[in-house]
């Protein structure tokens, strides 16, 4: 069984938002909601500035509060390590939405269920990468199987120092960030 994860190479992200629109189309995400977004954060003062481009999405946490809190069992772990939502079981109580420290979930008001990034489960089933990864113009999003030591993602994680967001909350995220910005002269 694979164990899926994503790496975000922040130095390669050009903030083009192709991933965001692709995700919305692939997953029919309702207006004004997002399963993934790209934040651009600038620090310093003119002219000594640095930027961080940060793609955020559900971290498919190992120790996921959204799963723990879900009263119906709709939010659950799959065998491939991903966190998924069984829409039929979901009653739209919003417990998971408030429990997620990453603000990764939204309620699909039209259908009344909670929703979030699924790593494009439907595409994985067809042997494709998630939509955001497939179209990432910067090649910043890398997806793969942590259990396969030869996978691109395993190699990248071995070779580069990496971090997860908000490690302190202890949810065990599976989205890793590598951040190698060019050194300034």
């Amino acid at each position: 069984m694979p164990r899926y994860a994503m790496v975000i190479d922040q130095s390669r992200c050009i903030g083009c938002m192709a991933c965001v629109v692709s995700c919305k189309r692939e997953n029919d995400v309702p207006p004004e909601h997002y399963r993934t977004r790209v934040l651009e954060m600038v620090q310093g003062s003119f002219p000594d500035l640095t930027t961080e481009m940060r793609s955020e999405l559900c971290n498919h946490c190992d120790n996921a509060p959204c799963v723990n809190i879900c009263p119906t069992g709709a939010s659950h772990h799959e065998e491939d390590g991903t966190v998924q939502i069984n829409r039929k079981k979901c009653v739209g109580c919003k417990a998971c939405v408030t429990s997620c420290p990453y603000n990764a979930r939204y309620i699909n008001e039209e259908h009344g269920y909670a929703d979030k990034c699924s790593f494009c489960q439907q595409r994985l089933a067809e042997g494709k990468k998630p939509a955001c990864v497939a179209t990432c113009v910067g090649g910043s999003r890398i997806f793969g199987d942590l259990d396969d030591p030869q996978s691109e993602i395993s190699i990248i994680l071995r070779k580069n120092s990496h971090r997860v967001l908000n490690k302190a909350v202890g949810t065990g995220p599976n989205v890793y960030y590598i951040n190698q910005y060019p050194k300034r002269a």
Partner: protein
Amino acid sequence: MAFSRRNFLKYAAMSAGGTVLADTPFISAEARAKAEGGNVKYVPTSCEMCFWKCGAVAKVVDGKVVKLEGNPYHPQSRGKLCARGQGGIGQLYDEDRLKHPMIIDGARGEGKYRKASWDEALTLVAKKMQAIAEKYGPESLAMMSHGSPGDYFTNVLKAMGSRNIAFPSFAQCKGIRDVAWELTYGHKPGTSCERVDLENSRVIVLFGTHLGENMHNSQNQEFAEAVGRGAKIICVDPRYSTAASKSSFWLPIKPGTDTALLLAWINIVISEGLYDKEYVEKYTVGFEEVKEAVKEYTPEWAAQETELPMRQIVESVRELCRYAPNVVVHPGRHYSWYGNDTQRARAVAILNALLGTWGRKGGMWLPAKAKFAKFNDDAPAYPPASKPPVIKGDFPFAGGEGVTQVLRDATITGNPYPIKAWIVAGTNLMKALPDQRLTRKAIDNLDLLVAVDLFPTETVMLADVILPECTYLERHDGLYKISTREAGVAIRQPAVEPMYETKPAWWIGSELCKKLGLNDYAVKGNGMDAWEGRMRRQAKAWGLDYDQLAKHTGYVSIPDSEKPYITADNQPVFGTFSEKIELYSDELEGEGFDPVPQYEPVEHPQKGMFRLIYGRSPVHTFSRTVNTQWLWELEKENEVWLNKKEADRLGVKNGQYVVLENQDGVRCNKIKAKVTERIRHDCVYMVHGFGHNAPRLKRANQSGADDQQLITKYIEDPITGGTGMRVNFVKIIKEA
């Protein structure tokens, strides 16, 4: 079948990598649909959310386009589409689209129209065109366009005997640069896409070229690739752009002084002996003259002029030379800045030549080599022009693509002869040309304005007759010659039938020919598949298998056309008179211009005023995508970037709405202030294309501000006629 080796290798490698996550190689649209079964279709086609024309694949389920993906074979998309490309479905299903022909039913600008049939609308257009041609001569018919529809109306006008055809992409954008490079190398720096080998560059220099925000798919893929590999970026921009955030050297230059920096760099490169001596010797003429001409441009002088630290000026160019020739000074794209822009582009071209980048790995690749058989489908030659066109004005090097504002001026003055009809296809002139007051004045002088477009834009809603085109996802358009490292051919074909009563531009142009009695120039055959028939004949003439293209890959490459670098048996050919790179230009001298660029200072803003600069967003194209659902959702309005210190001084808070007023007292709509450290103190910046004044564009109307409204002043480049549009100054007015 011939297809891209590069892509094939990439995909082969990915599948060999093993796990489930190698995206299924595309192989064939038809095979893919078959594998999925049900009512699924995959249609390879070409994106037209911008002009990059990426190969796309439309997934169609039960007759509805549900997803667009990049075509992995196509060298400009490589399996990916940008945000706009992904959002193309939003354009197709936008309820604000033009739906049927309309004829004006009131005064111009009132917005009152009545619905008409195609027959009525086209008969009216033809009758009016004929009457105007009879009264004033065919030369009084003109056309302005952008993108694919233009070709079909160029055909109509030429068949009528007019050559007054102009494209804003020349004088309002990249034409200036193209002319400069043609003068220097005898070639443009690329036809649709720049021939920059970013993927292999060690150092990339960008002058006001904000890759990342300026979203040209494959070029950005290569840019990110270069950054990921650790290539050095030198970014010259008064604004800390996305590209600047990736750079080793960000040079926050004083706007308008780029040529000073370039000339000082050229001086350093020569005086420190850092240029490629062999290359210069072998491929260029005029080195000594350049050496002489740049002597006075010292780093000290440039530091003062550009307000950059001298150390930064010197160190950045030394870094550039250290890795030459595997480096490139990007030729740039939108070039109409200050009215002396050809000389800036010449300086860039000269610097590249001194570093030996043309034909070098990581520099500029050589034009792909491919010959296509001539194909005109037995259409007769066009009649000669009734009168010489006005489109070049007094500009000796204005190209054949025409200077739009010259056409506009002639329409206003009637000099040298009256211009009485415009066909405007696929361009929103009110937002493309500087000084909207003049554009409006010219339009008021017309007896006939015909608009061919998808949406009820400002310009469309001034037309006498509106002809609704269908979107790129609903039409055949052409076999496109692609010229990247390799040459190839791509197809555009419909994923679904045209919605409402919209029609492809080829059909509109062809029917218009028939109504004008110009049957020989109409598309052969009747019905909606006539153009496809022509495409098939064209494929045959070019020796291509049409079905392979249409049903399977959407792109085929021309074998052995890829020879990007100089080798002993692959020497560059320069189309100049000397057949060398002309560092010193006799041609320019012959017309009384500086044969080697000289520095001309520009006017700077007075205290309390800011220079207005503008640029692009990665999720929008010009003013034409703001209404598109998912793109609008991501960026509904533009913001004006204002330096933090200046904002504090003015008491403007981040996110507060302000109004800008320019030197001529013209004000824009209210716009949100983005108070930021990312821009110099003496300029403000906004993304172009917002601030629509088009009530029928429900989402886009009145959102954000229109930079073009504030560009009431422009300075024409004397060499090409390009309109320098960064010469307007604004003050900031806090909203009451």
